[in-house]
């Protein structure tokens, strides 16, 4: 055993930092590698399970069948995805408009909040599946009915988050606005709205996913009469026909849409907040 050589000069990066840096590099790779690996393993397992046990394709189609169907049925699936996407996006836009409008109304007028907030909650807690058939009866235009259905599900997180956000301004800043004689509009525009932005964006993230769920439920319940042949209707129809390859292809596309919506909302949130808000900051050290 040799005695450790005396250090000629202290290294700029010590062992602990080096270990941390190595760990960080590893994590960076693992963040992509591990989920990809899980995906590959799962697909392989699925494939071998189906081939080895000779599972009939009307019970569980193998990944090759699903992939084949995805390509074959693309002319059906793509327009269906556009229809579902349009419904989801419209519902989300309406949810943003409605949710923000009501939130502003509620924070500007105590009376409006006291009168209507309980009903907003009731609308939210009633399962949309239970309301959808009624909408189909009372709303003549089936597309409007489906839109309403998706809207009801999506708007509440926007409403409740934005309402909390609008009430969460710094009290000292409120005082400052009072001292400088700010009017109601200036208070809303320059203080309450920016304070509410992070809360609103949090609500938007949830609402994006919920709008898709609402759209799928609407397609299931109200059916193709109003919405045309969306992804969820395609999926339902494929299940009636035991066309499980197409069913799985449609299912994959629906969850892909969910992922894209979530990513888009996260991007919007990042772009809006990264310059100033704590939630979007990277901590050093």
């Amino acid at each position, binding site marked *: 055993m040799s005695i450790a050589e005396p250090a000629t000069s202290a290294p700029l990066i010590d062992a602990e930092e080096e270990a941390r840096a190595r760990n960080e590099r590893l994590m960076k790779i693992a963040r992509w590698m591990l989920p990809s690996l899980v995906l590959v393993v799962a697909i392989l397992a699925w494939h071998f399970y189906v081939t080895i046990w000779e599972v009939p394709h009307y019970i569980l189609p193998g990944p090759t069948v699903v992939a084949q169907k995805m390509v074959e049925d693309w002319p059906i699936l793509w327009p269906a995805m556009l229809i579902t996407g349009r419904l989801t996006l419209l519902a989300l836009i309406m949810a943003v408009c409605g949710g923000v409008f009501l939130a502003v109304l509620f924070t500007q007028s105590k009376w409006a909040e006291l009168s209507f907030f309980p009903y907003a909650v009731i609308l939210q807690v009633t399962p949309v599946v239970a309301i959808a058939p009624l909408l189909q009866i009372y709303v003549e235009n089936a597309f409007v009915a489906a839109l309403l259905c998706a809207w009801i599900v999506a708007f509440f997180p926007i409403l409740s988050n934005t309402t909390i956000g609008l009430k969460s301004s710094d009290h000292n800043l409120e005082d400052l606005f009072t*001292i*400088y004689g700010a009017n109601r509009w200036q208070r809303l525009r320059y203080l309450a709205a920016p304070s509410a932005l992070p809360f609103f964006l949090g609500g938007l993230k949830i609402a994006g996913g919920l709008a898709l769920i609402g759209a799928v439920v609407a397609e299931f319940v109200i059916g193709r009469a109003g919405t045309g042949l969306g992804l969820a209707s395609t999926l339902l129809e494929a299940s009636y026909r035991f066309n499980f390859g197409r069913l799985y292809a449609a299912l994959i596309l629906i969850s892909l849409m969910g992922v894209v919506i979530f990513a888009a909302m996260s991007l919007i949130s990042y772009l809006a907040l990264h310059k*100033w808000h*704590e939630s979007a900051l990277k901590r050093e050290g």
Partner: protein
Amino acid sequence: MAITRKPLGERPALLQMSHIEKTFGGEVVALKDMNLTVNEGDFISLLGPSGCGKSTALRLVAGLMRPTAGRIEWTGGQGLGDLGVVFQEPTLMPWARVAENVWLPFRLRGKSYSEVKDDVLEALRLVGLEKFQRAFPRELSGGMKMRVSIARALVTKPRLILMDEPFAALDEITRQKLNNDLLALRESIGCTVIFVTHSVFESVFLSDRIVVMAARPGRVIRELEVDAPYPRSEAFRTSNEYAAHARKAQEALHQAIAEAA
């Protein structure tokens, strides 16, 4: 460009608080019969233990609450922009850049940024932050945020600046630096200040009048004059004169605490 300030006793009155009472919930007496005349050019410290009503007094002057009884009168009436306020926290809008934060008092009066850009930059220059006009508050240190807050308070060239323990949350060294800078600022623009603090040393170093207050009920028990001349330098902190004034203020504060107990 030092300004000339009349000696104590010859300054014209700026604001008069007479027989101010403030009670909360009908039983807690936050302020009892407070009388105070603020003169042009005064640097007044309200010194006292917690609960003595010093912050309440400040909020009353700021118009954030109304006195239960008594009157607050401004000489010549109070106009918009006559008042600047600095809170204990920097109280900046985190979503707005430094210059936008300083612009706020003007913006709320409907003035566009280009109209008042020179004033905003001048205020930032006075607190030594003209290079940081495009920074966001989170990029600044605690002391720098406080400077932005001060720049915002004086951007409208107010007749009176209220400061509510502005440096209490800062470390001692930053606090002393900001005390020096505040005095330098006062020498160059000649503002009138009411400064709330619970630090004897801060009050002696900064002010020419110290109003000592006691709690339960909140009231004024003593008024001291610190007749040391301005500008006060770092040497003043270690002078006998400073020590003598600090002793007097400390004794008054002790009395205030004893009376409350």
